[in-house]
């Protein structure tokens, strides 16, 4: 992820910064950084797709699919953030599986009930002053 260094706002820009997500074609501004509560997420519509955007306690932002592959419901933005060792994860609010926010990989189960791999699409996200 090339945008890693942009995952945090530059010092001094904390409250004024904007969050942008790359939708494949270009960077799309989605919301103010200050609108994000540390440890929680929000749901976004990006080019017709549902994206879950989070901010962790250290201030970094992450974006993944909002769809929970285990229930099929679009609810991951409502999960709590947590850490598994050094990995920041989101815990599905439906059946509590953990997903690595950097890779989108589910750490608890390999495949979803429909047989597809339990991996979320990771959307590049950055904070701009």
């Amino acid at each position: 992820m090339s945008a890693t260094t942009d995952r945090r706002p530059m010092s001094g820009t904390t409250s004024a910064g904007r969050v942008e997500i790359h939708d494949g074609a270009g960077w799309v501004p989605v919301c103010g950084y200050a609108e994000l509560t540390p440890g929680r997420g929000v749901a976004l519509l990006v080019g017709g797709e549902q994206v879950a955007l989070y901010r962790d306690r250290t201030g970094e932002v992450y974006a993944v699919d909002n769809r929970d592959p285990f229930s099929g419901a679009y609810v991951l933005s409502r999960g709590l953030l947590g850490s598994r060792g050094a990995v920041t994860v989101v815990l599905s609010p439906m059946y509590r599986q953990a997903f690595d926010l950097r890779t989108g990989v589910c750490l608890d189960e390999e495949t979803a009930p429909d047989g597809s791999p339990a991996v979320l699409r990771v959307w590049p996200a950055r904070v701009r002053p």
Partner: protein
Amino acid sequence: MERTDGTDRVDGTDPIDGTGGFGDKDDLHGTDRMGDTDGTDREHLVLVGHGMVGQRFLEALFERSDATAGVPARRITVLAEEPRPAYDRVHLTSWFSGTPAEELSLCPPGFLDEHGIDLRLGDPAVAIDREARLVTTASGDRLRYDTLVLATGSYPFVPPVPGHDAEGCHVYRTIEDLEAIRAGAAGARVGAVVGGGLLGLEAAGALRAMGLETHVVEFAPRLMSIQVDEGGGEALRRKIEDLGVLVHTGAGTRAVTTDEDGRVSGMALSDGTGLAVDLVVFSAGVRPRDQLARDCGLPVGERGGVVVDARCRTADPAVLAIGECALAADGRVYGLVAPGYAMAEAAARELTGGTGSFTGADTSTKLKLLGVDVASFGDAHGTTEGALEVLYANSRAGVYKKLVIGADGALLGGVLVGDADSYALLRPLALSGSPLPAPPEQLVLPASIGAASGPVALPDEAVVCSCHNVTKGEIRAAVHEQGCASVPEVKRCTKAGTGCGSCVKLLGGIVAEELAASGVEIAKGLCEHFTLTRAELYEIVRVKGIGSFSRLIDEHGSLPGGEGCDICKPVVASLLAGLGNGHILDGEQAALQDTNDHFLANMQRNGSYSVVPRIPGGEITPQGLIVIGEIARDFGLYTKITGGQRIDLFGATVDQLPPIWRRLVDAGFESGHAYGKALRTVKSCVGETWCRYGVQDSVGLAIELELRYRGLRSPHKLKSAVSGCARECAEAQSKDFGVIATAAGWNLYVGGNGGMTPRHADLLAADLDRETLIRTIDRFLMFYIRTADRLERTASWLERLDGGMDHLRAVVLDDSLGICADLDELMARHVETYEDEWAATLADPERLRRFVSFTNAPGVPDPTIRFVAERDQIRPGPAPASALIAGPDLEVRAR
């Protein structure tokens, strides 16, 4: 007088006389029916009696024949007098509290078919011809047998006093007996039980629960004279009288008197007094049903019981007898199920070419009678030469304990009334004859005072689980050799603890000790972020006045600066909320809440939410119902009445929650906290106000309790109920705290649970006035909140609490820990600072900000939440795999 003993009679006249038409053997050969021989030369086994022991025998037979494959299978016919397959007679009384007959069944579905067993319900055996090896049934069928097994059980003994068979007299043995008692109780006011033994007290409890004024008439000078001694009988009597049962000991029944219609109207007692009663239950002991054996000339004991040897064979090698109808090789007739099971196993082994024998059994018992623990084990009466007694009695608490110690200092037996927690440990000690691990005085002291010694003290050969005969050594082996690392694993592997369950606590202790000994560390901490338990964190937050998760994890977490997880965050959120740190959606607290708390609603399977307004005590005005109905209609919500006497509205999207609640709050409704680990509802019955049996205003109290404890955050959800009389229509004894009205006040029960692991609540205190009741509940709740683990319901907390109920009573009633002032203050603060979370949320735009489907597109609804119609309401439709693909289903609500 309803009795099911078709073949045996109390008065000793010959009941089989006159069954006629059988006995002419020549004729018989001609009429031998095809049904008796199936054309193969498979042996035919006929079992007479499909009771508890009969069923166990069949199971053991097949467990064995799996092991002895190759032995040609037998053909099996079972003759049953009762109209249903074997059921759990031991738990018969639970039928009164609502356990359906099917649930009591011991015969697994498919069992009979799988093994090709021909079970003939309602067709008892009436005669045996041993020479011809023929059994005749009541319907006139004659069956040839190769092996005959008698498992006919016992019949209740009814003293032949005048009036003993009047209308209104009952016995207590079968489901049909109970049906008759219930029907009779409907029109009755006063009931009497003749006999103050184990069954009599159970019957008395049942009558009491049906709202009858209940008397127990016992001939002996004390209750349960077989199991307990005088002191124990006294303690038991006091406890039982506390529950409103009137006990008459040393009183024989001289006659049952009747009115002009021949119905029971009273009893004349041997002490010259009389009782006016409408219903009588005879429970004066049981007698073996050995009439069939007597009539065919098999030897029976002087006081009844078919004589068998250690292999359960009668004098005729083709006939076996097991269970309560048998007089075992040790010269005793056993009236308990465990010895019966042991005989069933021995007989099955005998018939499948194995070796096994039954030479006697331990008759230790532990029971809960009317909520009172009673246990007796080993030489309970101290009949061994030179035996000494060690006593502990606390008549206020109704506790009586006696240990019988041999001249050599070994434990021989004992009696425990009111607190039988140590039974599981003491019984095996007494039976193994090993030296005591501690001075006997210490073993009888309540756990909160004396140092009760742990399971280490038990020798390896001590039987820990008597139901399945599992020793401590076998449990240790399961841990060390078979790698079992938890109680469930040990249960699966050894079967220990899967019978009556009384040994589970001891089992847990042994497993924990063995695991600790083998160096397995049992992590007690909350999760990877905290090595502390919830109770420890509670104390830290309280004492240090910590107000934020960041500070807690940075100062006390195992990984300072860490993110936490979905285990520790909600726990801390609940602690902070419980200790008065403001609205749960404010500041950093907002980030900690579980998703349900975060949106103050319950997330459902498709990501939509359900809304539950509080309806205290289940009381609601017609106008209130109309408002809820209108809101549900206007927002297109699915409505369902919950088990907690409120109304659940399903199918709201995140953005609909505020407008729905706006209307609810305007109509006077509050958050029902269905989403939180908090008080749910206080259910109630209509009570005295309307119900003709009620003795107190149960609805009024339920409302008061619900308003007092609403919003109280706790380790897990809290449920409660109030019943207006002992009939218990509100099911208070299945709740975390339940209250049942008595004529004198309120009885408080705690630690009950429904759901997956049901537990009957224990009586904490009886006949409390309202003020004391509320103070006691306050302290109970706060003590629980303070000390319980995460997600630990009151039921398991109480099971785990050192010293159990006695300790809890000491803490909340006698302030033994000196913390009651603190507990009272914490509750007072909760009551003072309570505010409706939804009203407060609606009043604050900052808190409302989160209720949008998409942060970057406010006002756009979530297109993936879809509903279809079912039974005139909505239900979740399948979610589309991608937001862009529309499903084919009918959309009934446009968003």
